[in-house]
């Protein structure tokens, strides 16, 4: 580690952060000042990050910063910034789903403007439109390129635009959206307006916004309120800005996580009652909606997109199958072959994770509470064990349960030195990270999203993304899978908005199967897959309509 530090410092000393300031590098005084400012900014960012991760007291924060390793780690992230900037100038060949966008809080652009919160800046786009709040409108071009690349991998949405553009099925719709703001969701947003809707958008996560994409949207005239590294207060402010505005009467909600819905119900119950419907994407949000429905507090219909086939069986399964390897490689560069990997949970995410790792020669074990899923794991040739049986021998531990405290401090105490621990579940409580923030353990940042936790006897455990969702923090989700999800959301919105009075009541609904099938059919062209058509005779024999739906609602795929 120390030689690396030396190397880094050798490389870094003559250079300064920004290309345009490099010219002034000769001026020692200026570059020193700048260096100090950057250090302060980075501390501020780390502080912000840690404040928002649960269970960490401010005092602990100070002791982290006081360790000697801080300087070297700052230097490491510094080098990363440089690399990041170089990549961006060749950006055409780097897709929207590159590491840069999602990798870490040390992502360059946000740092440079960090001194001023976007709420205190007034920006306007090239046409003078200023009803938005983002990090920096000047990055709109980069964002636009990323959106264009994403469009190439999202044929269904572009197809949908083409097909429905004439009818404008969403004209009259005024949608308030609260989702991750990424190149892929930008394609969704622009599709919705192409279909006739008016929208106001904010982010459902304080770290997930791709700033340049938000800029591109603002440039295109969208009222978007989001930036990477929001504070908690900013988060709710952004939501407010989307709900209320002069002359804006929203009538539909597109939510991810339920925070937007929650806000509107609490603060604007009249607006809520006047809406046509909610489309909810995530497990958590859906859970909250079902609870509302149970207590008769849900006064408008809601569509549960999370449990549609195309979401569950494609997003959860295949995207995790691809992103687990990506996430692990980018953070740790480990060799998968021969590793003992323990996967907690064999639901859709667990299945994808196991399948990917076995494909590269890992020896995989599964822990499960559900006997049916356990049996499935057995049939796939995976041993089902209890965590305490494999905790000492496992090399990599991955949680995918939706549960909390699956990996406790006790388990972490027993793991071998060098074990890697990460989480593929939505919430960051699957690994009991809070229990690691005690005085006897030292945290050492290896690189962004990778921490060494060091026990008094020198044993180290590698924790990724501080126990947060690995694929969003450390890698990316393939655009294609997001195409499926976003297409489902678009169709759910169309369905709810155009449904005749009384078809949907004050309850939570699943997407009708025909829509599910329609989403799938929009994606088949990518694979050059040719669907067979039933003959009239066959359709009669099976009792099916030739254009579907082809399966009963209980079919599990």
């Amino acid at each position: 580690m120390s030689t690396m530090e030396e190397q880094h410092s050798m490389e870094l000393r003559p250079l300064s952060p920004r290309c345009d300031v490099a010219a002034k590098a000769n001026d020692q005084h200026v570059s020193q000042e700048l260096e100090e400012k950057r250090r302060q900014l980075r501390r501020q960012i780390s502080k912000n990050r840690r404040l928002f991760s649960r269970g960490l007291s401010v005092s602990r924060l100070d002791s982290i910063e006081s360790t000697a390793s801080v300087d070297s780690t700052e230097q490491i992230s510094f080098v990363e910034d440089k690399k990041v900037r170089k990549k961006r100038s060749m950006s055409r060949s780097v897709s929207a789903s590159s590491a840069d966008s999602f990798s870490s809080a040390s992502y360059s652009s946000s740092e440079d403007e960090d001194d001023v919160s976007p709420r205190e800046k007034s920006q306007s786009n090239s046409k003078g439109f200023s009803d938005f709040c983002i990090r920096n409108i000047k990055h709109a071009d980069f964002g636009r390129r990323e959106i264009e690349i994403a469009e190439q991998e999202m044929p269904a949405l572009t197809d949908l635009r083409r097909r429905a553009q004439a009818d404008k099925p969403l004209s009259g719709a005024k949608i308030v959206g609260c989702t991750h703001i990424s190149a892929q969701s930008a394609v969704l947003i622009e599709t919705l307006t192409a279909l006739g809707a008016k929208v106001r958008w904010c982010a459902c996560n304080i770290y997930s916004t791709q700033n340049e994409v938000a800029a591109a949207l603002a440039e295109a005239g969208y009222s978007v309120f989001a930036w990477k590294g929001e504070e908690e207060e900013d988060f709710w402010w952004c939501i407010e800005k989307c709900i209320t505005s002069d002359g804006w009467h929203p009538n539909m909600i597109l939510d991810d996580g339920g925070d937007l819905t929650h806000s509107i119900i609490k603060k604007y119950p009249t607006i809520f009652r006047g809406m046509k419907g909610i489309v909810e994407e995530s497990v958590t949000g859906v859970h909250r909606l079902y609870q509302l429905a149970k207590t008769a507090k849900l006064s408008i219909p809601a569509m549960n997109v999370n449990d549609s086939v195309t979401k569950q069986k494609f997003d959860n399964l295949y995207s995790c199958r691809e992103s687990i390897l990506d996430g692990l490689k980018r953070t740790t560069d480990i060799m998968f072959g021969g590793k003992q990997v323990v996967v907690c949970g064999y639901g859709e995410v667990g299945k994808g994770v196991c399948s990917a790792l076995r494909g590269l020669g890992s020896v995989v074990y599964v822990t499960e509470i559900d006997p049916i899923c356990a049996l499935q794991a057995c049939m796939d040739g995976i041993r089902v064990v209890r965590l305490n049986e494999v905790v000492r021998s496992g090399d990599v531990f991955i949680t995918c349960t939706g549960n909390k405290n699956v990996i406790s401090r006790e388990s972490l105490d027993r793991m071998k030195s060098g074990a890697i621990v990460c989480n593929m579940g939505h919430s960051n409580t699957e690994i009991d990270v809070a229990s690691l923030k005690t005085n006897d353990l030292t945290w050492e940042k290896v690189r962004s999203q990778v921490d060494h936790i060091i026990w008094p006897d020198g044993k180290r455990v590698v924790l990724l993304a501080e126990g947060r969702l690995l694929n969003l923090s450390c890698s990316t989700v393939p655009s294609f899978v997001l195409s499926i999800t976003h297409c489902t959301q678009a169709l759910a919105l169309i369905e709810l908005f155009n449904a005749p009075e009384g078809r949907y009541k004050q309850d939570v609904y699943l997407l009708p199967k025909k829509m599910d099938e329609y989403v799938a059919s929009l994606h088949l062209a990518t694979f050059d897959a040719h669907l067979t058509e039933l003959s009239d005779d066959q359709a009669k024999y099976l009792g099916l309509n030739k254009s579907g739906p082809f399966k009963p609602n209980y079919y599990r795929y």
Partner: protein
Amino acid sequence: MSNYKVADIGLAKAGRKAIEIAENEMPGLMSLRKTQGKTKPLAGSRISGCLHMTVQTAVLIETLVDLGAEVRWCSSDIFSTQDEAAAAIAATGISVFAWKGETEEEYEWCIKQTLIFPDKQPLNMILDDGADLTKLVHKQYPELLNGIKGISEQTTTGVQVLNAMVRDGILAFPAIDINDSVTKSKFDNLYGCRESIVDGIRRATHIMLAGSVAMVAGFGDVGKGCAQALRGSGCRVLVTEIDPIVAMQAAMEGYEVLTAHHAAVKANLVITTTACTSVIDGSILELLPDNAVVCNMGQFDTEIDVSWLKATALKKTTIRPQVDSYLLPNGKHILVLADGHLVNLGCAKGHPSFVMSTSFTNQVLAQIELWTNNQDCKNYKKGKLYTLPKYLDEEVARLHLDHLGVELTKLTPKQSKYLGIPVNGPFKSDRYRY
């Protein structure tokens, strides 16, 4: 009515040995015998069963009897009977009517023999596989319908038939669809076929799977299992599908999805798994390469148009039982296995016992539910189709975990509260797809 009709009662001893081995692999059924054998929940029931008369079914039959039922049995396919299993069951005094290689007329005759029990008592429960018995009773013995308390149905095709009957309002009693228990369709249909498709092809032919091109029509549970097994043996697998969601699943797994006419020119192995009719018709059969092997994994023999072959072929040669070669006018040969009937049962021994145990445990539980838990049709109404509740599904899975050395994790009370799930399940909502 005669007591039984099997191929050769002398095979009973061999059959008994096979049954004993199977019992080792069927922990679900054996466990039910242990826990419920004394209370005899099925006492008083007269079950007519129409399900492939195999060694595994023999274990099911003996479990039903152990739980107090009287049974009469026939097979649900003309080629699927394992004669030594039939003999072993007949030797215990159970009335079974099944042999390998029945004619269609004999098949129907066998079904009819199961309907009336000693002392002229008619059946009062049905255990069906493909709904042939149910259909026959509705059509030809409507006077018996009133006395029947319910039916439990084993397979996708049978459920299709029952659904149609429910829709038309003609199903006379409650039905439980055990096919759509998770522990049935996601295990039997998928893993069972995954193991038995290659078995069937290998025992019937000598083709090398590695390097062959296989066309799998349909990518449902059966299609998924077949495709995976064939790919694992080195086949290049092409899939045909009508359902876009399932077609996308096939694409995500790296299979090419084509229409049958495009796939047929390349495929030297064709397997149907659709539960549909005329999937491989004359126009497709003509496109196949010389000596292509064609077989079916669906319940009924309607998927491959064998009658077209019989009418059009210049010559038919029987190479060995259940393996026929047809010479077409275009000069090419087609090898048809089991005459288009289920190839895994027609040409091999069907599914492995373990996975049949999960299916059959569902069957027994369904019979118990309909017989003991349905006073005045309160829980399961006449003319409607139900699936078993999730806690029973999970119980079936639980009964099979020890055999595989599984250690299940238990939720702590805190986790149980956090998730809103009872510590002992059910663990998933009905929407969950596994």
